[in-house]
């Protein structure tokens, strides 16, 4: 049985939403996909009934700061500061190094935490939400 370790993952991103490029120095990523539930319990029923509703996703990505410029890594860490963001940026979150197991979606970066702590590597934490379809190719 094959298992995977976190370092086998990776992140690709394209602010233009077309051809995603690898984000260097990614330390971690996570994505939570949620589905709303709609209560369809009939009046007088004993047991509650639910059906699935809208699906959405939100997640986090940690990047080690490397002072990269003019590449997608730089675009990624600065994208929160984009005006008139239409949510067309392409995210690809990979679970394996072969690049075949991925979750892809368009999204919006909703927050970026830039931090520097004495004695530690500088980390940028990006939070995002999905926009539209989420494709689980895992």
């Amino acid at each position, binding site marked *: 049985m094959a298992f995977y370790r976190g*370092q086998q993952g990776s992140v690709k991103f394209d602010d233009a939403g077309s051809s995603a490029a690898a984000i260097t120095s990614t330390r971690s990523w996570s994505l939570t996909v949620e589905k709303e539930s709609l209560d369809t319990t009939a009046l007088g029923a004993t047991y509650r009934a639910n059906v699935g509703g809208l699906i959405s996703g939100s997640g986090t990505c940690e990047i080690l700061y490397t002072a990269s410029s003019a590449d997608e890594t730089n675009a990624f860490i600065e994208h929160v500061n984009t005006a008139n963001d239409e949510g067309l940026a392409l995210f690809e979150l990979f679970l394996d190094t072969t690049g075949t197991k991925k979750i892809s979606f368009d999204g919006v970066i909703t927050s970026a935490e830039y931090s520097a702590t004495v*004695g530690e590597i500088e980390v940028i934490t990006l939070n995002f939400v999905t926009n539209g379809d989420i494709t689980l190719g895992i």
Partner: protein
Amino acid sequence: MAAVNLNTIRSTIEGRLATELALAPVIPVVFHNQPSTPTPNSSFVQCLVSFGNNNFLTMGGTTGSSNSVIGVIVMNVFTPKGVGPGANLTIGKRIRDLYNRQVVSGVHFDPPTGPEVVASPAPEGYFQTQVRLTFETFEDL
């Protein structure tokens, strides 16, 4: 991008000390696995570089990824016995200032600990203190 060359890192660390202690007043320095017979009633420094933890820094396989390589430097400062700590601490300060918070050729030096007095000097017959510090460098594969 390549795996780190441990001897390059060692050379960076040891070369820095050798250059400093070659300046007046000259202090003999001996490194790991070198034969040395200290001169009685004189000062010398022993520098021991060891590599320790290596950790994942970033995602990725054997290419396009980074690791952290951490190590420790232990420097034993020996000065003549029975004449107080002054001469010893003077050498300790030279060593401490040499590495304190420096970044040299990609090697990040942390603030040093010491000079701490060693109760039982080895070899005997000297007043010994120890300066220790950790260092970190980054391996880009």
